[in-house]
């Protein structure tokens, strides 16, 4: 675009918050892996972050309207990729989620999340009414439902769940009627109830998923089985106390009691070593990030931009909520990483691409 804005228009606050969260993440990845077989992982994460920042800047230069123009094709490509994963994808950690690109394994569903954000933004931007009709709501639901079904088939409950808040937030901002909201929340409640009610969940959940639910409800009963992870995480968090045990001093962390402590349970390791004060810092940063995103949405030039930013906000907010709630044992293990802190290439790239979209919207808020 000829009218590309200058660097002054970037959201430097957002970048600062982002960098701070990444720094906390790298420090804690170092703490969880140094001296183990995974030593050096923090540098790998730094590499991902560098790539992420680069990708973010590249994406922010490309006008989001151009990207949204391609929404239908992106959607089709996304579905095709999901089907491809099911057909030829690599099975890692018990789920078929991975395809190799450039020598690394990527989780296709991460990319699909981004595509759904764009597709939903396009869809809701095209809804010209102030209130969302039931018809449009169902259409949006189907738009999300198709990839969601494919992701569940992998199976990847965590990623599938992330699609839901995108839909809900989008619909809400598009003028969801309270009546519809009530009906759908009821349906949602029933679904959650069914998941937690064994006689019903037996028919809809995979055994490992049911086990996670059970161990979430009764972690002490099976302390070395699936309840082990939640219990050990809670022990780590709780034993950290207010001041924490100090960097590199968390016994739960250093002795390996916290499961996948460099990734999904990194908050647990952070909370153990840095205590409640550290948690305040980390959650404070996430809150600042999310509020800053909302602010960017509020200042978007058009509805399309707003929906894009809020889609990102919904996805990231949901990640933070579900991951952190899991770490303190308030939610079952779903395999959702903590954005920017957890180690992982695909997840990190997703976050930077998403933020790239946000920057994109911000850069163009004054452009006509």
């Amino acid at each position, binding site marked *: 675009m000829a009218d590309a804005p200058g660097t002054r228009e970037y959201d430097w606050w957002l970048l600062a918050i982002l960098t701070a969260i990444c720094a906390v993440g790298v420090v804690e990845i170092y703490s969880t892996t140094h001296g183990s077989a995974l030593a050096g992982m923090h540098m790998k994460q730094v590499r991902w972050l560098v790539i992420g920042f680069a990708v973010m800047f590249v994406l922010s230069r490309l006008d989001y*309207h151009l990207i949204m*123009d391609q929404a239908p094709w992106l959607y089709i490509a996304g579905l095709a990729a999901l089907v491809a994963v099911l057909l030829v994808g690599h099975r890692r950690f018990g789920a078929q989620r991975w395809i190799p690109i450039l020598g690394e394994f990527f989780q296709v569903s991460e990319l699909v999340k981004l595509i759904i954000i764009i597709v939903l933004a396009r869809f809701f*931007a095209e809804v010209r009414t102030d209130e969302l009709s039931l018809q449009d709501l169902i259409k949006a639901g189907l738009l999300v439902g198709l990839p969601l079904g494919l992701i569940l088939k992998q199976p990847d409950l965590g990623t599938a769940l992330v699609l839901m808040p995108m839909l809900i937030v989008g619909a809400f901002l598009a003028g969801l009627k309270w009546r519809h909201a009530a009906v759908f929340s009821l349906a949602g409640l029933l679904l959650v109830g069914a998941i937690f009610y064994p006689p019903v969940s037996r028919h809809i959940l995979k055994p490992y998923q049911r086990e996670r639910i059970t161990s979430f409800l009764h972690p002490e009963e099976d302390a070395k089985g699936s309840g082990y992870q939640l219990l050990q995480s809670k*022990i780590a968090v709780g034993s950290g106390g207010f001041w924490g045990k100090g960097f590199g001093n968390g016994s739960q962390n250093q002795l390996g009691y916290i499961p996948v402590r460099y990734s999904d349970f990194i908050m647990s390791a952070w909370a153990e070593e840095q205590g*409640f004060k550290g948690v305040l810092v980390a*959650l404070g940063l996430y809150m600042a990030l999310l509020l800053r995103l*909302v602010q960017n949405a509020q200042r978007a030039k058009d509805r399309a931009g707003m929906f894009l930013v809020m889609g990102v906000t919904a996805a990231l907010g949901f990640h933070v909520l579900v991951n952190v709630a899991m770490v303190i044992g308030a939610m079952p293990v779903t395999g959702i990483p903590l954005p920017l802190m957890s180690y992982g290439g695909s997840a990190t790239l997703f976050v930077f691409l998403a933020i790239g979209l946000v920057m994109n919207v911000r850069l163009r808020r004054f452009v006509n």
Partner: protein
Amino acid sequence: MSYWFRNDNRLPQERLAAASYVIVGMIALLLLGFWKLQVIDSERYGQMAERNRVRSIPIIAPRGRMLDRDGRVLVDNYPSFSVLLLRDDPAEVEKNLPTIADGLGLSIADLREQLSNTKNLPKFQPIVIKPEATPGDVAFIESHRADVPLLEMLMVHRRRYLPGGFMSHASGYVGEVSEQQIEASNGKYRPGDVAGKSGLERQYNDLLVGTDGMRRVIVNSVGKEMGHLEQQEAIPGKQIQLTIDYDLQQVAEAGLGDKKGAVVALDPRTGEVLAFASHPAPDPNDFAIRVSKEEWQRLNEDPGKPLLNRVTQAQLAPGSVFKIVMATAMLESKVPPENFTAFCPGYGVFYGQMHKCWVYGKSSHGSVNLHAAIVHSCDVFFYNIGMRMGIGAISKYAKMLGLGAKTGVDLPSEESGLVPSEEWVQRVYHHKWYPGSTISVSIGQGSVMVTPLQVAYVIGGIASGGDYKQPHLLKDAPHVGEMHVDLAESTVEQVTQGMYGVVNEAGGTGNSVKLQGIEFCGKSGTAQMMSYGAASRLGLGKGKNDGWFVGYAPRRNPEIVVAAVVEDTSEHGGTAAGPVVRDIVKAYYDKKTKKNQGQVTAEIQKNDAGKSERTLLSGAPRVAVKSEEAAAVVAASEKKRDRP
């Protein structure tokens, strides 16, 4: 560029604001969750983290050793390994049970039983599942540390006793504590702990037992040791020194050999037990680990009663040994007067029944006075004085002289014997005393019963002029009980002269055990287990006897008194038990002579200096106990010791 977005800038600002509130609320809720865990419940989770991190493995304190009076080691320890099962996590234990059972060669049922026996204990306390680990077990545990992180090796100290049941009824044995002991111990004992079960091991358990320490290691999530914390050292149990003289004990053990019986040697001046043997004797080394049910049953049902401590628990008719009590009673009560004589034609008729003298059918004693009656053990004389004294006086004097009551020796489960009386027969049999029974009692038959220890104690007391010292096995025991019986000098003189005559006068019943140069006195006894008539009817020939001999030296104020009994013998007491007693007394004097001549052995000299002891347990790996502790031990034991 598409048209679809143009000029559409109607943003739902209210709903966006609502989203901000939702975000703040969400973060606040999460923080609340952290507050609950990290501030409110922090302590609880801190403990759980600590329990994860730290594994406590007990360090077993070695039990105190037992030394003889010269400092020679009688009971020692040797190191061994036990297999511990860590049961913090029941699910993991359950999962690995088959692997563990297979690897250690145990049955699953047995393991389960052990687990259910200990289910009331705190989960973090490991239990011993196999007391004696073989090299194979050690290899199994080491190679399965990662996949079965539930097993630990524990160094324990096993008891080592002298072989062949040497002194085993005195030393007793140790075993795993019973459930009753655990309950009674106020949390001091845990299952698998070892405690004294009998004998001195039990009597002085509180002294001998040490305080276990604790090794605390840091383990990672797969049970690998990553480091260790400050450990709590074990405090070894106190060593105790016994009054037993190993040399005399050896003579006692050899003297009894494979005969069924008991022998005990006392120093009546102090009450110190110099030798203490009861045969048959089980080898307590066999129980040092874990005694199987079958083995235990076999020992309990053995007709030789190897578990019976005959010295303190065998209650036997004393036979003619009782005549010393009768003689003392007669002289003290002056009924009949001391110049009383009786005529022995080989039998006597009392209350319409004939009672034989032991020489019946072979010869007769003729006219006998008290001295002759003791020397020749004339039954008829004692029938006569018994009839004149009556059961009341006999009972009174027998009790006064120390029979029918426990001596108070420092061993558990001593029996008190029995002195019959009119009151006793009324209480137990609900009938009046038959005067005819008095006749049997007069020669130590009938219902009168004594233990070998009582015999040594009573004879020693009489020969010491009525000064009794409580028998005991703990050297330098602080409060040795005393008893004084007022005996007339002439009584003691006459009775001891009688016992001197038994051994030293021609025709005395103990003449065969005479010792040259020593004032060796004694009295034999041959208690019939059944009448001659009954025995011959059963084809047992002369009948089975309990052969007694009690001997002491010198004649007045003896230094050593030895009582021996040989059960089920066809011989007389003088020949069955006499040599056992004689050999001990002789060994005592031989040693004493050597000492007086300055021929003390090098070992004993060294030992007197408190530097080292000779170990009798050859090849036994010794547990290090600092030599200076030995001195402190006795001092400490004195404080703690409570005598009955």
